[in-house]
C-alpha cells in the first residue's frame, strides 16, 4: 500500500525541512520527501506531484495544512493493566491518534506496577494486538514504586522499556534516587523524575496561596516541586546519570533547570504539559475537579515562566501527562477526586497557541512534540527522514472548533478545556503507514 501526501506544508525540524513538499509512503515507511516549487490548489494532484506515484497510491490532499512527523508523547497513562475502567491500551492509543500522537511512553503506575519484564511484555503485546499507535513502556524505578528497592532495569529494558520513573510517587529517599541515576548509566536511559517533596506537599490538593486559603483547600507550595528538582539536579551532577524532569510547573523549577543546563555538568532534560502553559490555579475556583492535577495548576507568573522556559530551550519537551479518570471518581468532593487531566485530544490545539502567541516557531514546537522526546528516550521516531517508520500527523489549523469533552475518544472526559475554542486539529494521522482520517 502506497500513500502520497501532496501539497502540504511539511515541518520537520529533524532534517530542517520547512516548506511545501510531497511525501511518499511505501511499505509503512517514508520513501521520499520532495519539495514543490510553490503551493497551489491542484486539479490533477497525481500528475502535478514531483513524485511519480504508482496508480494504486492513496492520495491525501494536504493543501493548506501542516504535515508534521507523528507526535511523540513521552508521558502518558494508559491505565492498563488494572484500571481498565479508566482507560485501556486500545482506547488510550486511539485517543492519542485522534490527537495526532503516534508514539506514547506509558507510565508504570498500573496494577500490577510495571516494575518487571512480564508486565512490560504484557503491555507491549497488548499494544501490538490492539494499540492504534506505537507504545513504549516506562518501567518503575523501584519495586512496586515503593522507593525501597531498585527494579530490574536491564530485564525491563530488554523487554521494551525506554526509561524509568516512579511517576506519581516520587523517590523520596535521596540515596535511592542517587542509586537509580547511577545504575541507569548501564543502559544509558533517562530516569524521569516526578518532582514532589511529599512531606512538604502533605496531602495538598491545589496550589498554595491566597486562592487555596480562600477555597479552604489544602495547598501545595511551589517549593514542594522545586526542592526535589534542585535535589535531582544535584544528584545528576553527582552521578552522571541522565535526568529528565517531568511536568515542570513552577517558575523556580525552570530557573533551577536553566542554571543546571548552563553549568553543563549533567545530562538534564525537562518537559512540561499544555495545562501548565495554558491555565492557572483560577481554573479550580469553583471546585472544578477536572482542573485537579498533580503538580497543581500554578499562578500566572509560573505560566509565563514555563512559556519562557519553552522559548529559551530550558524545557525540551511538551508531553500531555494524559491521565484519564472515570466520571464517578471526578464527580465528587474536591479532596477525594483523583488528580489528572485527559490530555491527548487537546494537546496540539493548546500547544499551537504557543505559535500564535509568538512563544515558539512552528518548527520549534514540532521539535518539542516529536523529535526531542524521541531522542530523549532513544527512539528513531519524530522524523520524516527517508526510511523511517511512516508516522505522520497532518494538522488543519484553519477551522476553529469547540472542545467537546463528551466526544473525546478517550474514556477519560476529565478536562478543564471543555468548550474552549481551538483551531489546530489533526485531519489525518498516519501510524506506521496506517491512515486515520477525520472530516
Amino acid at each position: 500500500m502506497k500513500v502520497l501526501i501532496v501539497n502540504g506544508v511539511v515541518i520537520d525540524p529533524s532534517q530542517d525541512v520547512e516548506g511545501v513538499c510531497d511525501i511518499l509512503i511505501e511499505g509503512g515507511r517514508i520513501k521520499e520527501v520532495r519539495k514543490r516549487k510553490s503551493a497551489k490548489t491542484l486539479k490533477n494532484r497525481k500528475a502535478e506531484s514531483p513524485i511519480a506515484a504508482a496508480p494504486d497510491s492513496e492520495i491525501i490532499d494536504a493543501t493548506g495544512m501542516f504535515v508534521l512527523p507523528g507526535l511523540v508523547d513521552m508521558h502518558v497513562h494508559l491505565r492498563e493493566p488494572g484500571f481498565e475502567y479508566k482507560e485501556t491500551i486500545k482506547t488510550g492509543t486511539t485517543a492519542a491518534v485522534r490527537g495526532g500522537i503516534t508514539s506514547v511512553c506509558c507510565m508504570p503506575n498500573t496494577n500490577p506496577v510495571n516494575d518487571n519484564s512480564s508486565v512490560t511484555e504484557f503491555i507491549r503485546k497488548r499494544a501490538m494486538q490492539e494499540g492504534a499507535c506505537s507504545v513504549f513502556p516506562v518501567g518503575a524505578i523501584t519495586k512496586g514504586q515503593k522507593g525501597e528497592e531498585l527494579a530490574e532495569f536491564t530485564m525491563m529494558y530488554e523487554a521494551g522499556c525506554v526509561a524509568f520513573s516512579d511517576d506519581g510517587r516520587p523517590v523520596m529517599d535521596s540515596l535511592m534516587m542517587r542509586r537509580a541515576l547511577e545504575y541507569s548509566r548501564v543502559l544509558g536511559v533517562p530516569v524521569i523524575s516526578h518532582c514532589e517533596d511529599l512531606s512538604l506537599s502533605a496531602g495538598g490538593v491545589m496550589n498554595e496561596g491566597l486562592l487555596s486559603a480562600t477555597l479552604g483547600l489544602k495547598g501545595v507550595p511551589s517549593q514542594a516541586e522545586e526542592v526535589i528538582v534542585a535535589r535531582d539536579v544535584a544528584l545528576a551532577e553527582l552521578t552522571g546519570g541522565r535526568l529528565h524532569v517531568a511536568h515542570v510547573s513552577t517558575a523556580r523549577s525552570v530557573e533551577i533547570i536553566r542554571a543546571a543546563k548552563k553549568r553543563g555538568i549533567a545530562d538534564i532534560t525537562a518537559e512540561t504539559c499544555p495545562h501548565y502553559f495554558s491555565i492557572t490555579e483560577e481554573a479550580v475556583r469553583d471546585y472544578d475537579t477536572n482542573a485537579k492535577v498533580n503538580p497543581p495548576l500554578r499562578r500566572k507568573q509560573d505560566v509565563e515562566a514555563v512559556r519562557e522556559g519553552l522559548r529559551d530551550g530550558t524545557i525540551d519537551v511538551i508531553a500531555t501527562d494524559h491521565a484519564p479518570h472515570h466520571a464517578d471518581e471526578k464527580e465528587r468532593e474536591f479532596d477525594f477526586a483523583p488528580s489528572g487531566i485527559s490530555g491527548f485530544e487537546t494537546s496540539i490545539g493548546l500547544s499551537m497557541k504557543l505559535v500564535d502567541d509568538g512563544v515558539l516557531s512552528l518548527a520549534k514546537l514540532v521539535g518539542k512534540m516529536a523529535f526531542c522526546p524521541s531522542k530523549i528516550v532513544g527512539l528513531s521516531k519524530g522524523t520524516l527522514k527517508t526510511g523511517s517508520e511512516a508516522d505522520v500527523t497532518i494538522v488543519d489549523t484553519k477551522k476553529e472548533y469547540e472542545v467537546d469533552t463528551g466526544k473525546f475518544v478517550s474514556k477519560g472526559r476529565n478536562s478543564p478545556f471543555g468548550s474552549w475554542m481551538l483551531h489546530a486539529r489533526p485531519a489525518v494521522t498516519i501510524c506506521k503507514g496506517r491512515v486515520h482520517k477525520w472530516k
Partner: protein
Amino acid sequence: MSLKAKDLTGIKELDVEDIELILETAAGFKDVLGRDIKKVPALRGKTAVNLFYEPSTRTRTSFELAAKRLSTDVVNFSVSTSSVVKGESLRDTALTIQALGADLIIVRHPCSGAPHFLARYLDASVINAGDGTDEHPTQALLDLLTMREKRGAIKGLEVAIVGDILHSRVAKSNIYALSKLGAGVRLIGPPTLVPPFMEEVGATIFSDMDAGLEGADIIMMLRIQMERQGKGFFPTKEEYFKNWGLTARRLMRARKNAVVMHPGPMNRGVEIASDVADGQRSAILEQVTNGLAVRMAVLYLLSGVKQ
C-alpha cells in the same frame, strides 16, 4: 424578601445587601425568641434536613431548634466520617434526600466545597453549616449580629481574630464579612497557623498578641484543635497559652469596652483564661442565642417566603 441566591454556600457569595437583610431579619426573630410562645408558623409544611458528615452538637442543635421555631419539619441525617470515603457518594445521598422532598438541606462536611457541589445538583436550598477549612457563614452572621448589638455599626471597628486562622472556617467567614462591612481585621497567632497571603485580602497579621490587641474593639478567640499540638504548628498547649492565650492582663491592651467572643466549644486555659471567658466583657453566651435568630433568618429567607 429573599436572598439573591438559592443557597447559602458562604459569605464570599453574599453582598452587603444580603448580609444586611439577614441581620435585620434575625433582629426581628430575636423578638420572637424573647416571647413566651417562641414558635411562629412562618415555614409550616417545609422540610429541612440536617445532613452532618462531621460530629457537631451546637450547630446542629441550633439549626434544628431554629427550624422548629419556624414550624419546619426537621430531620437529622448523620453520616459517619468513615463512610464519606467508601460509602454512598455525596451526590447520591443528596439526591436521595431531595427525592424524599426536602426543601432545605443544611450540610456540614469535612471537605471544602462540598456544599457548593451539592448546590449544583439540588433544587433544594443548600445551607453551609461548615465545610472543611472553607467557611461557616452562619457563625460569621451571628458574630456580626452580636457585634452590632454590642457596639452599633460594624464599619470602623477593629476586630482581632486570634488563633488557628489556617484551619478555621469561622475565621474565614468572619474575615470576608468584616471586610465587606468595612471593619479592620487583625489576625493574631503563630506564623504556622496564620497564612501570610491573608494580608492580600486586607487583614493585618501579628504574631505578637500584645501588639495585635492594642486598641481592638472586638477580640474573637478561636478554638485550638488539640490534634495540632506536636504536629509542628506549636510545641505544647502550655507554650501556646503563654504566647496567644487571652488573659485578663492581655485584655487590658484592648479598648476599655472591648468585647470578647468565642465560637465555642472553648478550651479553657489553652486559648482563653476562665476569668475572661466568664467575665463581663464576654459575649460568648449571647453569641449562642444570636445563632438561633440568625439561623431562623437564613432558613426563612432561603424559603423565599413573601411577607
